[in-house]
């Protein structure tokens, strides 16, 4: 091999080394189970997009008119807000299929829009968090994985859920409990009743301490 060929070979070797190093530098680690979280998010958005904004406005108008006539006639009420809360449970199947990993404290704060939902970490691992609206109220939708099964928690400012909500959850084959404080409301819903029963005392204690 002459000098020119040697120099060319050396140069292409250096270039190959540079490219390999560049590839190595760009190849950063991808968060674990990101694909699972994406699929859950897509499933959530899919269901959400089935309820366009005009339906929310129409529901608000119906509720306003309904509450006016409700004062005139105390017939059996339709727990519209509980029904809406149930609409948030479509993700359960997707979330159960996806073996999502717990969110970090920072991720939870960020995704729950810093609504102060950190306390739920004491119940179990938070595997899903998303800010949302329950009957026009700013809310946070969380899924907590407990040893007894997953619990969905809807944390809303104000008190958008009515007293019939728990009954409505049961009619849909779920077990739900509503907890209230002066400024907010927590709806905890699970497919497995023991998940809620197991944590009800703990939740009461946590809320009492707030």
């Amino acid at each position: 091999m002459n000098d020119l060929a040697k120099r060319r070979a050396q140069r292409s070797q250096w270039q190959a080394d540079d490219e390999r190093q560049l590839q190595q530098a760009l190849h950063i680690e991808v968060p674990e189970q990101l694909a699972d979280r994406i699929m859950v998010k897509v499933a959530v958005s899919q269901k959400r997009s089935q309820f366009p904004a005009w339906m929310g406005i129409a529901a608000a108008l119906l509720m306003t008119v309904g509450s006016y006539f409700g004062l005139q006639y105390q017939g059996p009420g339709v727990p519209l807000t509980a029904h809406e809360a149930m609409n948030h449970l479509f993700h359960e199947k997707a979330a159960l299929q996806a073996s999502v990993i717990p969110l970090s404290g920072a991720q939870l704060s960020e995704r729950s829009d810093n609504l102060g939902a950190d306390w739920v970490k004491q119940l179990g691992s938070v595997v899903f968090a998303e800010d949302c609206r329950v009957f026009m109220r700013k809310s946070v939708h969380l899924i907590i994985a407990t040893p007894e099964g997953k619990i969905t928690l809807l944390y809303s400012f104000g008190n958008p859920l009515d007293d019939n909500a728990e009954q409505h959850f049961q009619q849909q084959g779920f077990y739900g409990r509503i907890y209230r404080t002066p400024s907010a409301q927590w709806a905890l819903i699970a497919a497995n009743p023991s998940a809620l029963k197991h944590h009800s005392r703990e939740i009461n204690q946590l809320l009492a301490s707030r």
Partner: protein
Amino acid sequence: MDQTAAFNALVRAYHSDLYRYAYWLSHDAAIAEDCVQETFVRAWRNWQQLRDQSKVKAWLLTILRREHARIYQRQPQAEHLDVDEMTFPAPEPHDDTQVQQLRSLIAQLPLEYREPLLMQLVVGLSGEQIGEVLGLEKNAVMVRLHRAREKLKQMANVQFPASQQESS
């Protein structure tokens, strides 16, 4: 294969490349993850509009770039990140110092050079495909790719002269 299964396969195939791309655009792991999640949400909504399956990577990348721009419109202050404040992923045991230095240089590379480089090396697009995404001629893309590498070398000579001597 039904549509959902096909889309989930797409997520599994491309989420890593898109995450890395978003990370190198934003230098922030949380923003990168949000960006990729939103990209796939939008991709799913517009899935029917994708006529040519062979262009799926470039299509996803176009959505991701728009999503990233949207996030930065909401957080304009993030545009002015100081390189010293950027967080890089924790080094892997096999990462050597040069790789870490290279990461800091890539982060400083102007966007007009960084993006084509990422499209080529992270996403695996050809010069022509990069041109389609960026709205450039293939020749202009090749020039940018060459300049990106040259610029990295120049920056390395200025910022890490000792390690450059060691390596040569």
